[in-house]
């Protein structure tokens, strides 16, 4: 078992504002040996300290991604744990949760341990979401207790939902007893009926098989009923429809222990993008029309949706050049998430910066239980807490005034399948500090 090392030495983040427990204040942040030592204006710079310029920037808790496909093992040509971690660091993430739909999938202690071991060498902390069922086949429960003993906190068959309601109920019940969280990719495959895009005006015009919003919503509704009945905690992945947001809002009002996430592409892109038949716009759940995009933004703003999660899904160019219906779903997300969220939610919808940090850091850290240090076997440090002396220095420094242009080949991911190619972005990640180590300085990965 690892104890993740804190970086030796002193780092001073100089200038700008800092997100503290009492809100944004103008201050410097001093990190000594991996732990925040001081948050104060005009801090003294000890000799030998690394100084990071943060003029005009905001320093806050490093982001936590609940939904990252790192592709290793099995599809290392699209992404490795190391390349994905580099992309995560560049995107401001100090922790990511690796999804289990690798090959072999993350349904055994052996494979999970291998991913955690590789993740421990990288520039972000890699946690794992274990499979709920053996082979993600939706039939027999995976060794959930054995994986939980390794510190796995989230369990999901992501890539697909658990289709059989009886299996889902049993798994939810089993997770509850272990104190781990069942997370669902909500998609009823029978209703989805092989649809590769949202069923609506665009699918009709383009002659592409569509999946209706109800394919997602039916499983959201089922799972909320099951969670309510069992008193279980449940996390719903990448919600994308009006109905899903309404169901979760109502469930929260009734006191059901549900958390939910949404992906940046579901609040920045619509299904009109598929008119080009460019498979870089193919994703699951699919891009949807304006009213769904508006509902996701509303859900993020009013607290119905707890977290922004990237669903970072690298795919090689040859697979994204396949005909639309044959190409795999998914898009890169780690390095564009902050800019998209900042532009659409803060600039576009008036969301306070504090709330954006809740969605990108504090809430996902809580959902993945990456918020409390020490008692996890793999020794993940604490993430998501607002900046204060005494906590591990997992920090991000963002520059809201920066402008940059997306180029897939310039991203750290091995794959290049961003749907935002050529798009001008508002706001960027300037520095990322992992356990006191500046892993990204001025937008450059340091290792």
């Amino acid at each position, binding site marked *: 078992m690892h104890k993740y090392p804190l970086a030796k030495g002193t780092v001073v983040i100089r200038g700008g504002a800092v997100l503290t427990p009492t809100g944004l204040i103008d201050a410097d942040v001093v990190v000594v040996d991996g732990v925040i030592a001081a948050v104060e204006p005009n801090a003294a710079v000890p000799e030998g300290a690394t100084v990071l310029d943060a003029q005009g920037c905001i320093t806050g808790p490093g982001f936590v991604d609940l939904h990252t496909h790192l592709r290793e093992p099995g599809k290392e040509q699209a992404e490795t744990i190391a390349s994905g971690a580099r992309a995560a660091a560049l995107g401001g993430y100090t922790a990511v949760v690796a999804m289990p739909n690798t090959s072999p999938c993350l349904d055994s202690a052996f494979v999970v341990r291998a991913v955690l071991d590789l993740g421990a060498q990288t520039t972000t902390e890699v946690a794992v979401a274990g499979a709920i069922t053996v082979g993600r086949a939706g039939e027999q429960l995976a060794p959930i207790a054995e994986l939980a003993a390794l510190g796995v906190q989230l369990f999901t068959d992501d890539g697909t939902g658990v289709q059989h309601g009886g299996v889902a109920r049993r798994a939810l019940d089993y997770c509850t007893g272990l104190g781990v969280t069942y997370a669902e990719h909500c998609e009823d495959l029978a209703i989805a009926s092989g649809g590769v895009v949202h*069923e*609506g*005006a665009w*699918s*009709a*015009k*383009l*002659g*592409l*098989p*569509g999946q*209706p919003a109800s394919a997602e919503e039916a499983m959201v509704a089922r799972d909320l009923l099951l969670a309510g009945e069992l008193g279980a905690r449940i996390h719903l992945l990448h919600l994308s429809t009006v109905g899903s947001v309404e169901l979760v809002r109502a469930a929260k009002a009734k006191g059901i222990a549900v958390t939910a996430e949404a992906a940046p592409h579901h609040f920045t892109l619509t299904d009109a993008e598929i008119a*080009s*038949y*460019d498979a870089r716009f193919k994703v699951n759940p699919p891009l949807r029309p304006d009213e769904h995009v508006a509902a996701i933004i509303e859900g993020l703003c009013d607290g119905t949706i707890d977290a922004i999660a990237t669903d970072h899904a690298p795919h090689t160019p*040859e697979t994204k*050049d*396949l*005909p*639309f*219906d*044959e190409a795999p779903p998914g898009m890169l997300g780690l390095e564009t998430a902050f800019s998209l969220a900042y532009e659409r939610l803060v600039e576009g919808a008036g969301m306070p910066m504090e709330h954006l940090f809740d969605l990108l850091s504090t809430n996902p850290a809580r959902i993945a239980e990456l918020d409390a240090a020490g008692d996890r076997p793999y020794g993940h440090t604490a993430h998501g807490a607002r900046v204060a002396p005494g906590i591990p220095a997992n920090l991000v420094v963002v520059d809201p005034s920066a402008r940059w242009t997306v180029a897939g080949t310039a991203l750290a991911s091995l794959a290049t399948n961003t749907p935002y190619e050529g798009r001008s972005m508002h706001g960027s990640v300037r520095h990322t500090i992992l356990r006191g180590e500046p892993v990204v300085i001025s937008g450059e990965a340091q290792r």
Partner: protein
Amino acid sequence: MIGPHLLSIADLGHDGIVQVLNVAESFAEVEKRTMKKVPALKGKVIATMFFEESTRTRLSFETAAKRLSADVLSLSVATSSVKKGESLKDTLKTIEALGIDAVIIRHRSSGAPLQAARFLDDIHVVNAGDGWHEHPSQGLLDAFTVRQAWAAAAGVDPASTGSSLFRGKKIVIVGDIAHSRVARSEVLAYTALGAEVTLVAPATLLPPSVEGWGVAVAHRLDPLLEEADLVSVLRLQAERGSGECVPSLREFTETFGMTEARAERLKEGALITHPGPMVRGVEIASAVADDPRCLVTTQVHNGVAVRMAALYLLLTGGNAALDHSEANRDA
């Protein structure tokens, strides 16, 4: 005005459609001669790439290309490196490297010809049917066929009528609309030419939305029969799963089939088209298929002239000499 690609009827618009139909009329004249070839595309190389089986469309396109004196390369997917795992992109790049001028693509995936047009630099791409999306040459030949029939009935030269014979005509498209590329191309063609189009099918065989299509939708065929000027009958795309969308073929025939009883109720001069292949006894009764009002064999025949027109306009912009006597000299 036309081109560089023919991926959708929407690429043509009203004027482009009429231009293709008119040029097709002059090629139809050529077909009546003993020497059916013209030299319009002499020296051009046209490839057909059919990633999905087809007999009539492929033969029709290849015949059209040969009658224009183009050299024709025929890539058969069953025997090509596609079977060995070569991607659509690489297959196209290979064809491009051979120095072809145009490629005619059929693919089971909607949008594949549009992707092909993106992958290729200076090659004209013709969509010969993609998934459920479009089959533009079929839409054009259907419009050509009914215009010719209406012109003959009126005793006028079809090429002189533009789109006037379509204006106000009531066209009913019945059957498996949801999974039909012919339906989408016909809708675009007929609405552009000014006809009033109604789509008729059980709800499960209609597209999920017809927003922006400019058509009416109905769930019962019978009330529309007396008024219809043209009924376009579509096949159930059983290979695309549409069999599950109706309880049984018998019930589909009972409710939406062009039975003899329904054909009886059509008004004087009404026409029936079918893009083929027909499934007699399901969407169309055998006796109706053989009725002179049903233009199915005329459609197949006209396909060559219409495809000649489309290829000629795409590859020459309509500027090459169309001197038929030259064809005779060439012989």
